[in-house]
């Protein structure tokens, strides 16, 4: 066990600290950068530019496409995260264009596509949304029905997408459509790049449990885009999307954020009272808190081990597959405890005067989105058991009306 960093990395940490000391005052707030309700402001774009220049975001993206052009260094990545979180400064934009489209284009796009999209996307000049899920295609994404028919040099797209966060202010959409209706379902899909200004696109906000419209439905009627707006080939979209999903996985399950929430919960429990008794002085609540702390520490150190294994070139096993599943429920229970210790006050939200510093009710309600989004618990457990533990795949069967398999 060796948790020390090399001298190079310790020096790098000092550089980051010096950078933060110098720029913290002029950095935009976390919320301004990572809010999901509007396109980046000029101030955010300015900040993003500084971060790229210093290699604190888009670090490994080649210079020729507008990135910093650094080598992959997980430890430096970790140091950047740690120091920026400690300083409460944003590490830059994190939308789906940057986290999913850019890596995909770098892997599978044409030279022209890379030149055209990577730079503007990482600079926040072009905002993307993701057009994958459909009302009838959730866990079974490959059953999607939105179709694109070629007419001359254009794809004509018809159908409906859902869960399209940021659709209402995006410039572009990377979208999966069915172009080969007669092919087996995984082989009939294409991955297109669609400007959101194209006629025939209607975006409707999708109100969720929190009361906010974090997501949208997108209706597509005779939407026409050039046949060159495709990544890789026709019918290969499923493979392209899986490359993208691979990039998405790293986004989910951030123990540093969960730890921040736990610390906020401890603070809450030290102040919130019932009949004059502090929540932390109620043994049953305290025990629940300690259970959560134990699980959090486990996940936090597990993530550190994953990073270390990655650094040391260990082959991935089931260990990486459990993080999203476990983190989602841990957060959910953490928010639940926050609500419970506040009692009736815990049901208040959205700016009510009796709330605590954090909106525990809204975080609790919002946590359903993390439990379900990016694969329900059932799908996660399939993945863990099949890919991680080598257990048999779910059989594909057709059932008759009584639920008997048609053989």
């Amino acid at each position: 066990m060796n948790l020390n960093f090399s001298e190079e990395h310790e020096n790098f940490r000092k550089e980051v600290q010096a950078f933060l000391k110098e720029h913290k005052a002029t950095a935009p707030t976390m919320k301004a950068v990572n809010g999901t309700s509007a396109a980046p402001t000029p101030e955010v774009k300015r900040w993003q530019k500084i971060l790229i220049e210093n290699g604190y975001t888009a670090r490994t993206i080649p210079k020729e496409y507008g990135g910093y052009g650094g080598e992959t260094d997980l430890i430096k990545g970790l140091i950047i995260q740690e120091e920026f979180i400690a300083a409460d400064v944003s590490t830059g934009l994190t939308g789906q264009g940057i986290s999913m489209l850019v890596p995909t284009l770098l892997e599978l796009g044409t030279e022209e596509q890379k030149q055209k999209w990577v730079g503007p996307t990482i600079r926040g000049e072009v905002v993307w949304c993701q057009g994958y899920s459909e009302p009838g295609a959730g866990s079974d994404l490959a059953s999607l029905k939105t179709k694109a028919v070629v007419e001359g040099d254009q794809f004509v797209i018809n159908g409906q997408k859902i869960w399209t966060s940021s659709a209402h202010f995006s410039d572009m959409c990377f979208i999966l459509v069915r172009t080969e209706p007669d092919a087996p379902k995984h082989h009939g899909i294409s991955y297109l790049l669609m400007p959101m200004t194209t006629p025939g696109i209607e975006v409707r906000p999708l109100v969720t449990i929190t009361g906010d419209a974090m997501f949208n439905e997108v209706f597509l009627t005779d939407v026409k885009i050039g046949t060159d707006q495709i990544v890789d080939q026709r019918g290969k979209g499923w493979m392209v999307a899986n490359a993208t999903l691979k990039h998405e996985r790293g986004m989910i399950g951030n123990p540093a954020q969960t730890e921040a929430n736990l610390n906020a919960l401890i603070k809450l429990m030290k102040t919130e009272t019932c009949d004059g008794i502090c929540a932390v002085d109620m043994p049953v609540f305290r025990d629940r808190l300690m259970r959560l702390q134990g699980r959090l520490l486990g996940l936090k150190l597990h993530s550190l081990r994953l990073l270390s294994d990655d650094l040391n070139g260990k082959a991935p096993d089931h260990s990486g597959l459990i993080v999203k599943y476990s983190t989602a429920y841990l957060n959910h229970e953490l928010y639940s405890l926050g609500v419970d210790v506040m009692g009736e006050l815990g049901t208040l939200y959205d700016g009510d005067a009796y709330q605590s510093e954090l909106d525990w009710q809204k975080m609790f309600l919002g946590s359903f989105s993390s439990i379900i989004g990016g694969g329900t618990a059932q799908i996660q457990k399939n993945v863990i058991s099949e890919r991680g533990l080598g257990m048999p795949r779910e059989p594909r069967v057709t059932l008759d009306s009584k639920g008997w398999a048609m053989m």
Partner: protein
Amino acid sequence: MNFGLSDEQVLLQDAIRGFLEEQTPLDNIREFAADGNGLQANIWQGLIELGATGVIIPEQFGGSDLGMFDATVIMEAIGRTVAPVPYISTAVLAPIALLGSGSDAQQQDWLNKISAGDVTFGVGLTEATGVRRDAGLTLADGKISGKALFVIDGLKADQLLLAVGTDTLVMVNANASGLTRNRLNVSDKTRGMAELLLDQVDCELIGTPGSATDTIARMIDAGRIGLAAESFGAAEILFYRARDYALERNQFERPIGSFQSIKHLCAEMIADLEPCRSLIWYAAYAYDELPEEVSLMACHAKANTQEIAKVVARSATEIHGGMGFTDLMGLHYWLKRIELNRQLLGGPEATREAAARLQGLVA
């Protein structure tokens, strides 16, 4: 022996459920939530016409004198439809207060009005079940001052019944001078919860000061049973919606309800939920017939039902996938009602501790 509803109670249940279901298609619930007052006049009027406000009120005051078991049947139906009506406060807690500690004149006056549907009540009992922040009331020279938090259905009520400490009950008119009433922004927008600020407000005593301990305890028992019944009704709806959705929704060329993970989740949900029905029924029966058992049963009915209803609501949401937490499906109205009820009149930890205390297990 019959553990369950009598034939008459089945008729009552059918009538109330039928009426409330007709009034609460999802579009209506959305409107009620946007309004946020917790009191929909036409639904309330319908319940009055069905005699629902008088079920625990003696016939001499215009009621039908049926009992808590019948009121519980009604509250379960309210939970099933998240109907925005001040039923528990007006038709259950207020009559108990008046019957337990009110003067003959007060009973005559208010119970008749409740039976007839001429008044609504908000009820503030948090003084007796857990004081938060700077809440607290004082009574001096017949005037009441301080702050009452989480007055149930208090936002639009005509009259406000408040516990002062754990032993005194007062009634305040909603228009009284010196009273400020503020909306509490609870996530469940089908119930009108209020904060009251009182500055030397005129009030009417229900009983003499210090004499209402038993009455307040009865109110808390009944309130816990009623909230449990509501939450049970809401959870049962969520469960069956999830089961039905699982049978309809196809993914991977088969109904998701044919996957063992979903089947077993449904099995776990119903295995946990179904016994709550009997526990709540028995607690209500005990309220009417077995006074020495009721407080313990009320604590367990509420704690157990709320814990289970919370998990059922989460699981039902999960079975619906992403759609489960959209307003398109609207499951969240039921989930939020369950979450609010969980905290009212004592959360599960507090009610379990109360159960232990009732058995002499707390030193």
